[in-house]
């Protein structure tokens, strides 16, 4: 399970998280950074909480986990002593939101990250997310991570044939619709290789519509949508709650100028952190403004298995190199 892989071995997850922090850095100061608290599952080491605290200075931090033993470990690892780590299931979060905000008075808004990994519980995860969305207020940010591993829809390569389907993509679509209930996009007939993140993207939009029926006080706008491989393929979406009664044009304009893709469901960023040596990175950095092919030519080797994959890797590096981790061995 990717959740058990140490963070230092998860460069794509690292880049994805850095993109999220960068996005928050653009958004939150415009809305009043001092009003926010941060809420997420946190994991054993509270990596997200540490980054949020160090990068944004948010000190109202809340983490939760269903396992009380993990919560004890979270308490040990908390970046500051005001962090509140509580044992409860993710399904309880929505009903506790008001109480959490009240605990952190005078904080009024929340950045919430629902970091799901289980590919067999997507329906429950979306229902939980809808429950949270129903309680969001203008200014809140919700980030949701879902497992986008297509293998989770097919047990074996022969399975689709045994069950009489034309193709694995058709079989996947049927299995997805069966597992996701009312969140399945209308007319979904096939899920081809690599398409599950796009399908989840549509399902999330349906989830937002469902929440909107009961919570008309916010418009949930996408501000960052990514997919990455972290052991398994994952999909994330970050949503900003805007007040529909207010004209948000100025804010939208400002965030767009700062590179935030506000309101665009089509801009799905594929996070790929290619395995470049430090020497290779220096070489690419020195010619970063050149065309992709020129950079590949300058390297004098293909950084990935094929020309096409190499091109994708270089393009991803050009776009995301700012967020790549640099690992060094440290002896303590």
């Amino acid at each position, binding site marked *: 399970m990717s959740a058990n892989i140490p963070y230092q071995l998860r460069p794509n997850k690292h880049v994805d998280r850095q993109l999220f922090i960068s996005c928050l850095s653009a958004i939150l100061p415009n809305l009043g950074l001092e009003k926010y608290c941060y809420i997420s599952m946190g994991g054993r080491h509270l990596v997200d909480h540490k980054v949020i605290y160090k990068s944004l200075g948010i000190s109202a931090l809340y983490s939760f986990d269903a396992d009380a033993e993990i919560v004890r470990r979270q308490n040990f690892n908390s970046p500051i002593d005001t962090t509140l780590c509580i044992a409860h299931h993710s399904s309880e979060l929505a009903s506790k939101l008001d*109480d959490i905000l*009240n605990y952190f008075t005078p904080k009024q808004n929340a950045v919430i990250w629902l970091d799901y990994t289980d590919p067999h519980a997507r329906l429950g995860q979306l229902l939980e997310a809808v429950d949270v969305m129903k309680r969001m207020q203008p200014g809140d940010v919700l980030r949701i991570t879902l497992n986008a591993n297509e293998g989770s829809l097919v047990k074996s390569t022969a399975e689709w044939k045994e069950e009489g389907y034309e193709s694995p993509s058709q079989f996947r679509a049927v299995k997805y619709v069966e597992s996701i209930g009312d969140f399945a996009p209308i007319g979904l007939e096939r899920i081809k290789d690599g398409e599950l993140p796009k399908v989840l993207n549509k399902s999330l939009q349906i989830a937002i519509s469902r929440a909107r029926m009961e*919570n008309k006080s916010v418009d949930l706008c996408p501000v960052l949508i990514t997919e990455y491989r972290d052991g398994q393929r994952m999909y994330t979406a970050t949503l900003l709650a805007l007040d529909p009664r207010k004209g948000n044009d100025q804010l939208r304009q400002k965030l767009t100028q700062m590179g935030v893709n506000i309101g665009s469901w089509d801009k799905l960023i594929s996070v790929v952190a290619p395995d470049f040596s430090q020497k290779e990175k220096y070489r690419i950095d020195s010619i970063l403004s050149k065309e992709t092919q020129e950079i590949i030519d300058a390297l004098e080797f293909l950084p990935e298995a094929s020309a096409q994959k190499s091109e994708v890797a270089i393009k991803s590096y050009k776009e995301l190199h700012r967020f790549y981790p640099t690992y060094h061995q440290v002896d303590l």
Partner: protein
Amino acid sequence: MTEEVTTTDDIYGGPTKRFFVSMLTRDIELADAILDLVDNCVDGAMRQRRGHLEEDAPYQGYHAHLTLNEKEFKITDNCGGIPDDFIEDAFSLGRPNIKKDGDLPTIGMYGIGMKRAIFKIGEEASVNSNSADGNFQVVYTSKWLDPDNPDWDLPIRKAAPSDGTQGVEISIPALKSHIAASFANDAFQSDIRRILAEHFGYIIQKGFQVRVNGDILKPKTLPLLVAKEAEGESIRAFDYEGEICGVGIKVTVGFFRGLATEADIDRELEGTNVHETAGISVVCNDRVILLNDRTMKTGWGDGGVPKYHSQFRSIAGLIIFKSNEADALPLSTTKNAVDTSSEVYYTARKHCMTGIKTFTDFTNKWKGMENEATPYFRIAEKTDVKTKVSLARALGAKVRGEENSVKFTPALPMPANKNPKRRISFVRTKDEVEAVSSHIFGEPDQEPRIVGEECFIRLLKEAKDER
């Protein structure tokens, strides 16, 4: 070229008598039709007590007396009679003017309810009213009620106010045969008393009297367990109070009894449970509109809230709406169902879900340890939700996005989980269970749970001894 011949004509687009007297009545249960009639009595009492409705027992002295047997149906009240300017709405079959009561929390004065109930129950009927404005009688003859009779005119006999009681009497001396059979049925007689006591429990609690064939009904209201002067973790209720779109909302959810044990759940699965109180009831202006609901309507099985299950049979709650504007309430036109799509209802349901979730989580966390939670329940007292529970106002915190709303979420006791408990559950045939029971206890009929538990205890001892 020949011109195409067209003709124009009119077809009848109006209502038919059959639709009202025969079809419309199929949409309503007999008990609900009777509830509609009592509703009208209560609306009258409300109008009489204008300006005093916030008192503890504003309806003291007002009543609705029902007589129902295989021969006749009669409902008599002393609630002021039908005022002159309500008469037209009371007897016409168009859209009632529900705003006529303006500043009173009625739920639809003389809408379709009275007529539909009369059409449902009888083959002829009379409505007598004596109010401060005057005295009148309207008779529905069997001829008028004939579905094929196109005549809509109803003769009304008016007179000056009389000195007697101001009120309404609806008398149905000729019953439809299947209605007469229901009224003669002891089970129906018992059910209608319970249903009236449940639906008008909060009105009766405020002094109103409902009699059925002479029996005074006692109110059925919801008491929940609330620990007094609680310090730290204790059994108390979730409580929310707010105002949305001019409608006052109170949502209270909690336990009305101790946790259901496995034996309780088994009994329920065998179908031996008594009338169930669990679930959420919706109350609009003191009338119960939805009783003990355990569906998505009140939030069960939505979002993070689990579907209703026997193990949650200790959880109950009330969603209370109050407004002087009848059309602001989340009521469907039949008055017997909630309009689940209104913003007011969504808000209440959202908070109700928070309440339900608080107690389903508690139930799940104590699963298998129900008896250990008993001491917490023992020190909590049954407290009437509507009149005595005001935790949100006393101890509540503000609610995001809602001005003037407050919410109290109880800190419920949690089991110490340094060594968490795990449930073991399995099924074996009766013969096998009896064989093991005989082997262990020397008798075949021990409870399967005890047989299984004893097996585990013995093997655990063996396992420990081997170490």
